[in-house]
């Protein structure tokens, strides 16, 4: 009895090995097939995004004479015009983000409290501008805000003012235009996260005697903070690299980071300096997103898909 069973065991073991081997080969083939499906997309992203950015990074390490130096970066601390650009950029980013929070939080809160049907109708008003061309919306604000624009002509017709107010072609124009464009980026993730807040928590709070204000302040608001934070980070990061609105509504007076990059490369063909600006912008963006992700977990990327 012993010998045959040992033989059987051996045969079974060999069979298992064979099976395992062919399974492994199969899994490998499967991996290759999946990679083949991914490869065209990955190749395009690699060729159009990674390679040029790497190239620009390399360029930024050389000065105009072609010598290896950090002069492109040292410039940022030495030249007043660069420092001014950074100050303007961060100033606009803070103001716009603040305005988006002030306008967006009540709106998202209202949407989250409305019955489903009403909320989805109101949401159209948020999503539609979101998918309307940035150029169209910037043009609209130019029409509304410029010297002979709608607001000024209304106010003059009504006799409120005699001289047109400088609303466009300056900082206020840029801030209003950018706030309008970026507001949905705050409202949509904030609304989505507010919808996940369990109303039982709020009801429990009210049952225990908290008034509406206390319930909001002690329960709802803290629970909505992660959603608010993701919206704030997105808006802030998008502000830093914003181009179209400052270029069209800044009247040449509000030079932001992205405009500076365009001017340095297109106007002055100084690729090294423009590239250095781009590298720092990318690093700041990634650092902010990374910090945010570290603080709040995997939300950061997921939020982008809300678009």
């Amino acid at each position, binding site marked *: 009895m012993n010998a045959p069973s040992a033989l059987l065991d051996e045969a079974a073991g060999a069979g298992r090995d064979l099976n395992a081997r062919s399974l492994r080969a199969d899994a490998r083939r499967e991996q290759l097939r999946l990679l083949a*499906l991914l490869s065209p997309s990955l190749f395009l992203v690699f060729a159009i*995004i990674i390679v040029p950015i790497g190239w620009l990074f390399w360029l930024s390490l050389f000065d105009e004479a072609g010598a290896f130096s950090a002069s492109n970066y040292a410039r940022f601390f030495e030249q007043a015009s660069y420092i001014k650009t950074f100050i303007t950029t961060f100033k606009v980013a803070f103001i716009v983000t603040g305005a988006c929070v002030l306008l967006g939080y009540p709106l998202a*809160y209202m949407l989250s409290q409305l019955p489903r049907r009403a909320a989805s109708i109101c949401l159209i008003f948020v999503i539609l*501008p979101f*998918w309307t*061309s940035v150029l*169209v919306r910037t043009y*609209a604000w130019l029409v509304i805000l*410029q010297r002979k624009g709608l607001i000024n002509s209304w106010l003059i017709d009504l006799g409120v003012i005699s001289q047109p107010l400088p609303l466009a072609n300056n900082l206020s124009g840029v801030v209003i235009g950018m706030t309008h464009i970026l507001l949905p980026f705050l409202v949509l993730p904030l609304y989505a996260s507010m919808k996940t807040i369990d109303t039982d928590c709020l009801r429990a709070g009210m049952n225990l005697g908290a008034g509406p204000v206390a319930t909001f302040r002690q329960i709802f608001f803290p629970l909505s903070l992660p959603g608010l934070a993701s919206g704030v980070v997105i808006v802030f990061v998008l502000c830093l690299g914003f181009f179209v609105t400052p270029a069209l509504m800044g009247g040449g007076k509000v030079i932001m980071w992205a405009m500076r990059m365009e001017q340095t490369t297109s106007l002055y063909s100084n690729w090294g300096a423009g590239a250095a600006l781009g590298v720092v912008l990318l690093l700041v*963006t990634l650092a902010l997103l990374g910090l945010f992700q570290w603080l709040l977990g995997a939300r950061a990327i997921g939020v982008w898909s809300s678009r």
Partner: protein
Amino acid sequence: MSGDVGLPISHRQRLWLYALGGLVLLFLIAPSVIIVIMSFSDSTLLQFPPRQWSLRWYQSYFQSLEWRDATVVSVKVAVMTVLVATPLGTAAAYAINRGTLRFNGTINALLTASLIIPVILIGIGTFFLYARIGLNNTLTGLVIAHTVQALPLVVLTVLSGLRSYDMNQERVARSLGAGRIGAFWQVTMPQIRFSIVSGALFAFITSFDEVVVSLFISGGETTTLTRRMFNALRDQIDPTIAAISTCLIVLSVLLLSVAQIFGRRH
């Protein structure tokens, strides 16, 4: 009682909230509405509401060779972007959804990189690359650049469709003798086709509305509509742009409604 949320706070107590929210909604939608109405004005002056109505700005749009050429370029590029980005993005989403690849996280990050990297950097980088390989001011160059911008949206949209689909159905089809492609085409595709169509629509809008990259890499005969608009806005405010803007708004509304209808049926 406030609807399905059911907190013991009446609508009356919330009036201030509705007023505030309504004002913000007005702020969001008013500019588009104003532009649509202004585009039918008869005057070169910016008056609202317009005193006389006419279609002269639409005429000036459709009769201008420059605007028409730019529109044709944009439509061509957007259609080709859809044709390239949709299959590529769907294939990528399919592979990511399996989740068996070793570098899934890295791949995901790479494919969605263009959402995070500042567009201005992509624009300058692409221009720089294209200058070396002669793709500036070409349709091919525009389509490739726009495809990269549209890919993340297609991938994310199709991926969300695949997540709610049971891949076992495809396995059943294959165990019953269907080939790999046949199983995908006949079993999986019909069930995720709404996500694929939505992804394609998003790709179209992304390409058609794209400004910054086009500003760098398009020009001459391949000037896109957005590039021409951008340059026109830098000089002066021509009411023709109100007519063009209205067409763009209508296009967005149409595409979004189609996506919405498809989404609901899904």
